[in-house]
């Protein structure tokens, strides 16, 4: 045989043996336990797009291991089954079907891309399976009201008035523009801004500029913004991978508007990458800072330590916000089941309806269920200051914002 043919056969043999053996590797990882495990399904965007959101699955894994080490839920260990939906709604729908029919999970949770939860929600609702969407903010997930679908984080509709308030308080703008990322989450934030804008009659929306989910160049958007010259630019749906080029380009184009940003940009990766460009910006934030020893922050510092110990991430900036949301979701399910006292899906759903303020070991100070009940207490705002300092602000019950943390990040 010619040399290249021999090589081909060797490689082919290697591939074939991998194909045959690897699928079974996962099965050996399970050990037999005493009581029958309770299955919880968790779908997340583990690969491909929005993978920083998919890290919620890791948080869920950490929570599962902790709970199982402490005896499980009512004596039964959790069997956490993670599904990768690749931020693609059709795969999320397939995962939902799998959870219901193949693995027959007891409770479904997860959801890191709004579009996926929007697709999966009706499937769970129809199958009467409780579904707690862990990390999606678009209100469309739980609206129209579906009995079995709950949404845990604050929704985009919560972010919008908070950010508009902030904009009014700090910049008193007369004109606004929205930079919107394509996709369900971006649209939900943008729609929320538009919905709440009539409550701020002095502000006028000039334009909504969209960019696709995977975008390669923002110069025309920034130039248009420069031409329109709004007093404040709101971002809707921007994620880490877009945030860095946007700020870099803005710097190159000599354009420094007053940004007020939603959740996706307030990530250490962005801040580290663009440093000064973010000075002066206000962003929504879902997890408080961790250098001041308040009760909330100590919990977060603990979580970060546990996460680092368990997963040993190469990246020192991890964990970001999202693992906490997955961690939260599992602990919340434990809380619900223990409150009800038995494994009854209908009762659990009824109990979830009643919860209005849960301050479990998780990192969201309260939980949001359905549009009617959401409130804004767990939404923090980060204010980036020069020289790497940043402040975290929390809203008091009276409606003012007070600084709860100030730290130097770089």
């Amino acid at each position: 045989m010619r040399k290249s043919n021999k090589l081909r056969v060797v490689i082919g043999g290697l591939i074939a043996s991998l194909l045959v053996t690897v699928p079974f590797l996962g099965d050996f990882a399970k050990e037999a336990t005493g009581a029958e495990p309770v299955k919880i399904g968790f779908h997340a965007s583990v690969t491909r797009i929005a993978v920083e959101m998919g890290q919620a699955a890791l948080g869920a894994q950490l929570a599962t291991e902790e709970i199982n080490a402490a005896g499980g839920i009512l004596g039964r260990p959790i069997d956490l089954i993670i599904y990768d939906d690749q931020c693609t709604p059709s795969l999320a729908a397939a995962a939902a079907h799998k959870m219901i029919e193949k693995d027959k999970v007891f409770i479904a949770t997860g959801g890191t891309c709004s579009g996926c939860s929007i697709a999966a929600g009706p499937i769970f609702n129809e199958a009467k399976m409780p579904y707690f969407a862990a990390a999606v903010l678009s209100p469309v997930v739980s609206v129209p009201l579906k009995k079995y679908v709950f949404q845990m984080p604050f929704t985009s509709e919560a972010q919008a008035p908070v950010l508009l308030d902030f904009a009014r308080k700090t910049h008193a703008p007369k004109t606004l523009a929205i930079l919107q990322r394509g996709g369900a989450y971006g649209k939900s934030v943008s729609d929320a801004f538009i919905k709440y804008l009539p409550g701020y009659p002095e502000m006028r929306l000039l334009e909504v500029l969209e960019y696709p989910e995977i975008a390669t160049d923002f110069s025309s958007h920034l130039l248009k913004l420069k031409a329109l010259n709004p007093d404040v630019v709101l971002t809707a749906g921007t994620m880490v991978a877009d945030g860095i080029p946007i700020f870099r380009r803005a710097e190159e184009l000599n354009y420094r508007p007053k940004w007020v940003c939603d959740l996706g940009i307030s990530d250490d990766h962005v801040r580290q990458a663009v440093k000064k460009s973010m000075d002066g910006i206000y962003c929504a934030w879902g997890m408080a800072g961790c250098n001041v020893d308040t009760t909330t922050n100590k919990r977060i510092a603990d979580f970060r330590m546990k996460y680092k110990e368990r997963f040993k991430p190469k990246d020192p900036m991890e964990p970001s916000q999202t693992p906490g949301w997955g961690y939260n979701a599992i602990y919340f399910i434990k809380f619900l089941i223990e409150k009800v006292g038995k494994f009854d899906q209908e009762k659990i759903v009824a109990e979830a309806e009643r919860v209005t303020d849960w301050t479990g070991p998780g990192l969201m100070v309260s939980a949001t269920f359905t549009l009617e009940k959401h409130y804004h207490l767990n939404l923090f705002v980060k204010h980036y200051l020069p020289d790497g300092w940043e402040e975290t602000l929390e809203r008091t019950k009276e409606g003012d914002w007070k600084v709860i943390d100030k730290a130097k990040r770089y």
Partner: protein
Amino acid sequence: MLKRMSTNKWKVGVLVLFVAFIIIFYPKIFGWYWAFVLVLAGCYFLGALGYNILLGLAGQVSFGQAAFFGIGAYTSSLLILLLDFPAWASVFLGGLFAGIIAYPIGIPALKISGHYLALVTLAFSEGFVVIFHEWVSLTEGPYGLKVPLTTFGPWDLKTEALYYFVLVIVGILAFTAYNIDRSCIGRAFKAIRDGEVAASSLGINLMNYKTMAFAISGFYSGVGGALLALATRCIMPWDFDFRLTIALLTMVVVGGLRSTIAGSALGAVLLTFFPEWTGKLLEIKELMYGLLLLFCFLFLRGGIVGGLARAKDKIGARKQLRPFSGIRHGNA
């Protein structure tokens, strides 16, 4: 020799009956979840079939298949949602509309070919994704279109009823494709694929047949998309982007470009089921998929069907080379 021929026919007959039995009783044997996966495979099979007709039969390089899939999905879903059409009519009309939209693509295909046609069709396809995304009043844009549960006769189209509904439609369309393949339309396509200039000098009207190829291909993909919408009940604009085209392309090539029905079917089934078989390790799925493709690429020239054919030839040849077995199973 007559005896040998009839035993062969027996063997094939039994095999066909066995496969048919499995397919017909699939939901009962393997459960609803796997039947659902087979339904998805069926939808992709139709898409791959359309692609195969365009690429394998007619030789037109197109990267735009996903658009037709999407047009069929959105059209049929909207007909069900807004106008309350019955399921079978919506699916058919969805495919028809996709075919009508595909028809005019054949016209630039006269002047443009090869890589350039690939780009034109790609541009066309991505353009439709933008339309699906932006025409919010019609398609609900990024929030996705939710297809309500429809009925066919007295049955709700979910679980088993859905399976048989899809099975019947796939069966009819596959049979039609088989007939197209063997008809003069099919021969004209093959002639165009093998040599356009020669074909046209033989009197084959290139414009008619090229546009027809796109239209038929569009129809098949449209029906596939419409059925997918019925199965997953939620469609979003980026379900139909370039990645879907690549997925369909891999199904066609892995199955075998030269074999229309069997190739597309094998490719679609294998590549839809494969992620389900790769066990629990999530991150590995992409790697496994890639390895599978690589394996097929390295060893299966002409796809699975091509590989099987070559294997059969090799076995047949080896049998003939052995002198004594030549006497026992000799050619008369």
